[in-house]
């Protein structure tokens, strides 16, 4: 039970959970599922990025009769308009990736800013920001997104804004808790006693010490962004040009022919599934490494 004492073994644990951000990444990679997740993610991203350059047919050209699984000269047949499913699949990843990436960066960025502001104010600012996120949290993300999309024209910028707006309060919650925890540490008081102002302390003491939860949260939000962006496409509400190839949209367009030509739906579904699983495995691996134990985060 010397494990329970602040003795040498305790120090070893301390050493694992502290440390530098690069150290955390290295430790995360030691977790098997992080490596698996990273490989899956890289694979899907490679398909999406390289795909348009190797696609056998064009994005919009007609190559056969609609819904023909075994149309001549195609790998996976044709879609509801008679376009090449394989080529549209290869073209259709970039939009999902770009939009989800943007949603994640903006959502996490805004959430982090709010968390840094609120978690280290101990005044009405904290109260106000947190009560505001309470209200935003009273909507499921998808319903909030749909409300926005009904009001503003569905277009990629709106999709990014609504999905990011859904993330921000949730990120703010999690990161505020992390910031609050760090703000209670004595090294923050030591900085205060030197007379340092709030922003230098936020950037110099708080931010560097919440990078662990921040990386986990970013991974999680990326997973949810992919799901939401693709989900809105699946509802036909992603606001892309009608003939543009997009994994979410492909499912929507071709779902009525699912029985006769399943590939047009299955290919994008598999890609989206792999991408979400991959990013979430990475997030979970980082979380495990950050916790220094096999205790998991709820999400």
């Amino acid at each position, binding site marked *: *039970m*010397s*494990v*329970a*004492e*602040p*003795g*040498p*073994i*305790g*120090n*070893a644990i*301390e*050493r694992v959970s*502290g*440390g*530098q951000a690069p150290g955390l990444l290295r430790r995360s990679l030691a977790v098997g599922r992080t490596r698996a997740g990273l490989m899956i993610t890289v694979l899907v991203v490679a398909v999406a990025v390289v795909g348009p350059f190797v696609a056998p047919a064009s994005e919009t050209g007609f190559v056969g009769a609609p819904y023909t699984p075994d149309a001549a000269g195609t790998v996976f047949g044709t879609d509801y308009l008679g376009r090449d499913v394989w080529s549209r699949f290869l073209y259709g990843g970039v939009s999902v990736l770009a939009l989800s990436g943007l949603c994640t960066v903006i959502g996490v960025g805004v959430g982090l800013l709010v968390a840094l502001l609120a978690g280290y104010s101990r005044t009405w600012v904290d109260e106000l920001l947190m009560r505001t996120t309470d209200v935003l949290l009273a909507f499921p993300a998808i319903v909030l997104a749909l409300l926005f999309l009904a009001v503003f024209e569905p277009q990629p910028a709106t999709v990014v804004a609504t999905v990011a707006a859904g993330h921000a309060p949730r990120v703010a919650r999690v990161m505020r808790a992390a910031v609050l925890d760090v703000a209670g*540490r*004595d*090294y923050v*008081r*030591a*900085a*205060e*006693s*030197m*007379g*340092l*102002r709030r922003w230098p302390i936020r950037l110099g*003491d708080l931010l*560097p*010490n919440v990078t662990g939860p921040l990386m986990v949260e970013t991974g999680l939000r990326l997973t949810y962004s992919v799901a939401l962006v693709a989900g809105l496409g699946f509802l036909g509400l992603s606001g892309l040009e009608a003939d543009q190839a997009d994994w979410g949209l492909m499912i929507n367009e071709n779902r009525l022919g699912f029985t006769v030509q399943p590939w047009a739906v299955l290919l994008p579904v598999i890609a989206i599934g792999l991408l979400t699983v991959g990013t979430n495995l990475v997030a979970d691996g980082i979380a495990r490494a950050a916790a220094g134990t096999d205790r998991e985060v709820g999400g």
Partner: protein
Amino acid sequence: MSEARSEQRGLRVRGLRVSTSAGVPVVDGVDLSVPGGTVLGLVGESGSGKTTVGTALLGGTRRGLEIVGGSVLLEGTDLVTLSETELRGWRGSRVTYVPQDPTTALDPAMRVGNQVREVLDCHDYGSGPHDRARRVSEAFEEVGLPTDDAFTRRYPHQLSGGQQQRVCIAVAFATWPALVVLDEPTTGLDVTTQALVLDTVRRLTRQHGCAALYISHDLAVVSAISDEVAVLYAGSVVEQAATDELVRRPRHPYTSRLVAAVPDLSGDRELKGIPGGAPSPSTRPSGCRFAPRCELVVPECTTELPELRLVADGHHARCIRSADVTPAHVRERRRIDEIDSAPLLSIHGLTARYGRTPVLHGLSLDVPRGTCVALLGESGSGKTTLARTIAGLHTDAEGELHFGGNRLPFGAHQRDRETRASIAYIFQNPYSSLNPRRTVGDSIGRPLRVLRGVRGAELERRVGDMLERVYLSAAYAQRYPDQLSGGERQRVAVARALISEPTLLVCDEITSALDVSVQANLVGLIEKFRQDLGLTLLFVTHDIALVRNVAQQVAVLQEGAIVEDASTEQLFHHPSHDYTKELLKTTPRLVS
């Protein structure tokens, strides 16, 4: 209890060994004997394996550890050989355990009466439900708790810390066990409650005729309750003897140095630490584990682990030079009796609160230049709030602070640079006072950068200089806090506090997270700076024995007010306030 029965009820441990699943020995070579009706104190610093020994006596270990050898003989049975099912019958019935922290060891969702009752039910105590109900009342009565339904139907959180611990003790003694293991049961309690708990344990041990093992890091507490004391160092018992004999005539160098490091209420003396640190289980040296830190070391010490052998009547020691061990030479401390310099810090009518809760009530205090003033108080007395207010970290306050003759504003950033540089603060917990993402050098240099504008090579030079002065090498500047031990971290904190050349140093319970041998080193270091630099110290602590050994003047804080403010001499010889008298009476002394 007859003599024979007492002997039969005793505990004998031989060659107990516990290892991690990787095979690293955590406890190896523990021999103990505890006759029935007596208390054996087991003293060890952090990492010594004392808690592991405690649970191993119940045939258990934490996850990742296992008992790999030795025997634990109780009532003619070797507990180590029992199956898990058989052990379950023994645990809670013949062998019981009183945990360190009652606030987490009691089930928060179960009424306290039921927690005692559960143990009786599990072991089919007595002749039936009526018998058990009566025993529950008895058990509560034995530990001095009310026995009415209104009390036994309470949940743990509705009890005070002392009451919770007494519930744990009631559970432990409920089944008339043969052995009770108590693992630091008074750590979280104030001294008055601690005295009550110690009394209860001693009385019940006698009354039940059972053997008790009292585990603690605190030699003074252990010597107050134990008939005999065993000293644990790096996983093995290095010495066991009757309490008085062990303290007065230690026969192992570690014990001798440990006694010298413990602040004692009985005398004003210079504390002496032990150089270096205890080895971790994986880095224990071959031969005597203490050899690298021992002044008496000879080549033979490093080749073979000495046996625990009889060195005097009833006195065992694990040292080949035990005959040469002398009681540590303890110098009387140089006294500064007359304090008549003008106050550096003067507090007048200070009232502070957290939200609507007042914490300090119109408190006044003068801190004379060049002295060490101790601020003594229990947790909740407001001592940390006072310290923080002085450091400019708590601004919800009224009243006046004067520093060097000038009015001192409450907020740190309302104070000018010179003032901020002149008042330094060292925090209680060295594990949270250093930013884990900054190097040691960066942390130490920060006050110089922020407050004095020092940069570049000059900064580096002064940081290196400062590190040397706290007995760390300049190379430590490149390390991160997680590569340091607790004692090293606290020395880095001292370096950070002193680098801006302050005149007032506020020390907030700076040793409470440290082992006594490390505490003595740190206290010595601070005292050296006080003398060399003419520093003024405000030393916040809950430990009255430590106060006697560090301060020239003492202010006793109780519930946000100073109830007594006197020179150390005066306070210890002629205390005036009842609270001070109570503290002096109930605090355990090393030598009674």
